[in-house]
């Protein structure tokens, strides 16, 4: 009688003794562990890739700006007025000056209010107003800058029936307030309580402690934070689109429209003229250099303070 042999089962037959069973389990475990380790290695490689991809855009953007902007960046760029269409060269003297004026106005509004609010937040940490202000300042920081622009338009340009540097500066100043508030709060918080208590123990009134001792100690950090806020504001275009509006001519009057560097870059970039495109790249180079230098300096300053201080 023929016996049909069934094929061997896929799993190795369970051996009779306990030793063999343990071996089989160990083999299965080793296989699973190998698979898990492989998966872990793959995911690790993916995170390396993600980090590499995340650093790529910065290098790409900066490289192009330098390559395309440097040729057009002559010393005349800073002193000459814009050239007519079709002529190469010219400069952005009015735009650079305009940006400086706008930053001055913005700083005059944003810095005092921001530092004052930051002092309040750092000293009265948990009052209802403090919690609300902290939360709302963070939310304000995330609002679109174009909304700031139409807000300033509604409140300043419409009643005055005029685009003006003042309106642009106020729009930028309003954007600065929440930024400076938060950085000031964090810097003042870093001042050790012992310093404050020592001053109070020596008979200083509370307000003099805050201003002469605490504020002066935190001043370096506050200035750094203020500079970072100024750097961010310097690059903002949207709030200026319908407040400062831009100006082809040389103007430093506060009640007149005024040119600004990011506005000029925008206008030139979307134009159809090659000479203007070259100017836009040069303007972009100046703007990026300004913003990055300040941000870098602020970073270095904060790190040194954190490392050497508390």
């Amino acid at each position: 009688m023929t016996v049909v042999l069934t094929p061997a089962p896929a799993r190795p037959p369970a051996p009779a003794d306990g030793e063999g069973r343990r071996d089989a389990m160990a083999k299965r475990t080793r296989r699973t562990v190998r698979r898990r380790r492989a998966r872990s290695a793959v995911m690790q490689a993916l995170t390396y890739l993600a980090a590499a991809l995340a650093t790529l855009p910065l290098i790409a953007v900066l490289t192009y700006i330098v390559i395309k902007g440097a040729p057009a960046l002559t010393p005349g760029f800073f002193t000459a007025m814009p050239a007519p269409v079709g002529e190469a060269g010219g400069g952005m003297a009015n735009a650079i000056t305009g940006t400086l004026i706008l930053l001055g106005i913005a700083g005059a509004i944003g810095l005092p209010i921001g530092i004052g609010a930051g002092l309040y937040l750092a000293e009265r940490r948990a009052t209802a107003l403090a919690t609300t202000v902290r939360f709302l300042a963070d939310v304000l920081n995330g609002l679109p800058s174009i909304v700031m622009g139409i807000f300033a338009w509604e409140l300043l340009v419409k009643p005055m029936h005029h685009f003006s540097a003042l309106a642009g500066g106020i729009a930028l100043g309003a954007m600065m307030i929440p930024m400076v508030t938060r950085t000031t709060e964090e810097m003042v918080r870093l001042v050790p309580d012992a310093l404050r208590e020592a001053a109070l123990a020596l008979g200083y009134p509370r307000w003099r402690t805050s201003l002469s001792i605490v504020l002066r100690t935190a001043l370096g950090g506050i200035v750094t934070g203020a500079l970072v806020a100024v750097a961010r504001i310097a690059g903002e275009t949207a709030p200026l689109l319908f407040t400062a509006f831009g100006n082809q001519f040389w103007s430093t009057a506060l009640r007149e429209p005024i040119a600004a560097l990011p506005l000029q870059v925008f206008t030139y970039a979307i134009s159809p003229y090659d000479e203007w495109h070259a100017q836009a790249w040069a303007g972009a180079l100046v703007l990026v250099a300004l913003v990055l230098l300040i941000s870098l300096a602020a970073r270095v300053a904060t790190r040194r303070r954190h490392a050497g201080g508390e």
Partner: protein
Amino acid sequence: MRVDTGDRAYDWVTTAFASMVPVLLLLIFTAVGVAGWPALREFGLGFVTSSAWDPVNGRFGAAPALYGTIVSSAIALVIATPLALGSAIFLSEFAPRWLRQPVAFTVDLLAAIPSVIYGLWGIFVLVPIVRDHVTPFLRDTLHLGATPLFSGPNYGPSMLSAGLILSIMVLPYISAVTREVLMAVPRSQREAALALGATRWEMIRDAVLPYARSGIVGGVMLGLGRALGETMAVTMLIGNRHEISASLLAPGYTMASLIANEFSEATGDLHLSALMAVGFVLLLLTFLVNAVARWLVWRTARAGAGGAR
């Protein structure tokens, strides 16, 4: 007492300055809301559902702009979130100590570059690359051209280009928050998982990420808030067309770029009011997204400071 007056003056000034923050927010809402009210009253809820944008006949509908805002932000988040999360995990788990600061610094520096510069780079560098290399690759090599998402003419400026530049701009915000949140996970969590035999990745997936989950979501929402409101780079790359299109290669509009483009040339009061109404919708949307994001991040920070859960 002399001392009292100084203290009182100081308190008064700092409290007044601090109060200016909520007052400013209230002013913004009021100014934009009041200016947009005529249009909202005229068109009612149809303002956000109608696609008609006809200044000549006085009909305004913000649906294409709303659609464009959401789609471009969605593209940005889909691309930026894995990259930000991956690089944050790299920095907090795998990177050697000397590499951490430079890489983190490079990613954070992306946030410092002004929007108009991204737009400039986008027009002359990104759009040609997308038009001449990425889109043909997606359409022909990957055969995605058959889907409605990649159909239609390939101009260059499009929802896809805008979404791509937005993803670059949004990446540093998500990355910074995620990095902080991951580093705040206590070592005991990590060590416990490893002690139980987990591989590095399993430790991250099962012990670190769940702990940091609401903070990560907060970071992503922060990025979303930025993407929703971004104006200049999007204006320069999205093509500026008042139409809802299924294809990602078609030009579109976002609320912010709509305002930026048409505001200075608005014809008539209703047109202006309609633009203000669009601004109000944008304001409301970004306010809500940012508020929820901040709350989530704040909640994670508090849980982390309070100890292990």
